[in-house]
């Protein structure tokens, strides 16, 4: 049995994977947390490993998957200021469970770890030393998904594929460029706000806007809330929504307009990555809802005609990986269905197996 913990401010979401069964809940930090989990599974000794999801590992946590050692908690604490709301939950729950159950394997799943080594020209902002020395840089995000997609592609095609662009379609869509198996750029920046706009996040905007809103009398909290929770698809439609709701009603006027802007932004990012890769061999669309995203994926691919992308638009979903490019397409295109918990669970299982053998 493996316990997976995911920050869900102000609570901590927990998932217990036991074979195919899945138990789920949300708890406050503290002894109540342990009590809730014990109540769900009966005996705490059934837990063989605990995995913690960390949204931003900064400069401290340098890989996607990190097995706890004596320094981990200390390093984790240093990451808290980068994303206090989320990282503090990860840190505090790690402290709680590590102390309570030191005999099991504890693993950090760090969503920025995959991107640690990207070249400086992609990871730094062109700001003065005074600002850059505070540790701000582009850390990226969704590294667990992007690394998983790369591993799937390597299994499927072998490592002959040199230039890959990953496109995650979901509540916080984002894109990454991979060259020779190593990520070289990505659309998420210091925070999740940079890049493609999300369900409620504004994506790339002119930062001057923040200063204007501030001088017009808005507080930091209000601006933060506006850009993080009231923008993106929600702002374009004028009501709280998600990309999946928008896709479901794609023929509505506002929905169609919002998707047009979304698709345009995605294409610009793809173009910029094709440019720095000097071409692209494989495009991977990643989603928790590939089927629902399929028409959008087709639309995006239509915008890539010029670089020789040809797809089969009505390819029926057979498995988690589906090749949708035609055989004469210069660039291969695949769709990859994913589930965060499955990825974490599978990783964990193989680590536990390695430990035994």
């Amino acid at each position: 049995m493996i316990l997976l913990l995911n920050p869900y401010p102000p609570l901590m979401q927990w998932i217990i994977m036991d074979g195919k069964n899945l138990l789920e809940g949300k708890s406050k930090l503290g002894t109540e947390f342990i009590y809730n989990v014990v109540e769900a599974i009966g005996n705490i000794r059934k837990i063989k490993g605990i995995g913690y999801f960390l949204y931003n590992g900064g400069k401290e946590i340098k890989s996607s998957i990190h097995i706890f050692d004596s320094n981990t908690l200390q390093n984790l604490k240093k990451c808290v200021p980068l994303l206090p709301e989320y990282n503090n939950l990860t840190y505090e729950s790690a402290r709680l469970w590590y102390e309570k159950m030191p005999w099991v394997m504890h693993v950090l799943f760090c969503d920025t770890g995959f991107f640690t080594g990207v070249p400086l020209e992609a990871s730094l902002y062109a700001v003065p030393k005074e600002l850059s020395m505070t540790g701000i840089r582009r850390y990226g995000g969704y590294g667990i998904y992007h690394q998983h997609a790369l591993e799937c592609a390597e299994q499927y095609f072998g490592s002959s594929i040199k230039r890959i662009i990953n496109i995650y379609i979901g509540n916080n869509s984002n894109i990454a460029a991979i060259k020779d198996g190593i990520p070289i750029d990505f659309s998420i920046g210091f925070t999740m706000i940079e890049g493609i706009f999300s369900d409620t996040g504004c994506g790339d905007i002119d930062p001057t806007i923040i200063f204007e809103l501030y001088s017009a009398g808005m507080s930091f909290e209000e601006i933060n809330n506006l850009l993080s929770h009231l923008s993106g698809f929600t702002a374009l439609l004028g009501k709280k929504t998600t990309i999946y709701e928008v896709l479901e009603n794609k023929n509505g006027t506002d929905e169609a307009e919002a998707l047009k802007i979304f698709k345009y932004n995605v294409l610009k990012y793809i173009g910029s990555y094709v440019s720095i890769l000097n071409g692209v061999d494989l495009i991977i669309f990643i989603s928790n809802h590939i089927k629902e995203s399929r028409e959008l994926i087709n639309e995006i691919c239509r915008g890539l005609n010029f670089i020789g992308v040809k797809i089969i638009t009505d390819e029926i979903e057979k498995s988690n990986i589906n090749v949708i490019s035609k055989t004469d397409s210069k660039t291969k295109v695949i769709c990859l269905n994913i589930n965060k918990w499955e990825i974490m669970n599978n990783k964990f299982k193989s680590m536990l197996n390695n430990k035994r053998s």
Partner: protein
Amino acid sequence: MTFKLFERNINHSINVVFSGKAHRLNVEGDESPFIEYFFNNSYENEKLSEKTHAYAAELILKKLNDTEIEFNFIGHRWIHSAGEFKTVFINDELIRKLHKLIPLFPIHHPSIISVINKCKSLLPYIPQYITVDSSFHSSIPPEAYTYALPKNLINKFGFRKYGFHGLSYQYVANKASNYLKTPIQKLKIIACHLGTGGSSVAAIKNGLSVDTSMGYTSLTGLVMSTRTGDIDPMLGIYFMYQYGYRPDNLMSLLNKKSGLLGVSEFSSDIRDIIKKISTDKHAQLAFNMYIYRLKKFIGSYAIILGGLDLLIFTDDIGINNWFVREKVCEEMDWCGIKMDLQKNQNVVMNSISQINSTNDKVKILIVPNEEEFEIFNEGVKLMEGNQK
């Protein structure tokens, strides 16, 4: 700051009788500011004891007076009016409006107002007008200009992409089309306006701007001399909230101390940076970031244009810096860009040069821009309208 005095003859032919450029105004670097003058087939230059635009304007008007060249109108480039006006005469009411538009372009707008005021105080009887640079980008479609922000805020504040360097793009796109003897409607163009201050890229289709790298203000897009270009907008909140920065201080850091200057830590001038590229790792990083960002924009625009026919380099760095051009075009054959390295290094100054390898699909042109000519043109239209 550049300046040109145009003379329109009775037969409508036009010649430039006096021109020049004031260099390194408000620039941090090793060398001091100076003005170059070209007139009567001669060349002069003078050093400036102050590096303000108003002082440079005063010297230029003095030189015109000394050389006894007369003129009837003064036209200024205004950067950005949020769509309020395009080409208009200057009066006190307009100056009051211009003051309100300073935040839209905090680097140039105060300088322009200072030059307007200087001209007004020295030559109160000469009519002055402005023409607005961002007008060329009014054809950008909603999917490119929309920020995903609540509509009430967009409407209240006018938040959207406006774009800049419009006069330059308008001029070079038309010049290039004439040079290639191809109607502009048949060209998919990416134009790089690489200046010593601001730089941007534009995608042009059917002769119209369809996207450009600068946004609501000139802060976004490419890495520039002292501006960051694109950054995570949340950094604004982060530094004010976590480190107690005052908004105007932070704005000033992002606009005036960032970009090449911020990364290199010694100069905002790419020429200085290139000189130290092999010995100074900050210089190398600043240069790499500059090129990298530009290549990304060219890629974005090639995709949204659905292909590329013509790549244009213009403005100071675009025209004069072969090394920048060479690095930008390196490993860009995915979209058909292939440069003739020899041609690129041996271009004739002050004329259009074609620097792509022979027979390549994508033409690469260096087109010296003449924004002053577009200002003159707009001015002539204004005067003619006024006479009617």
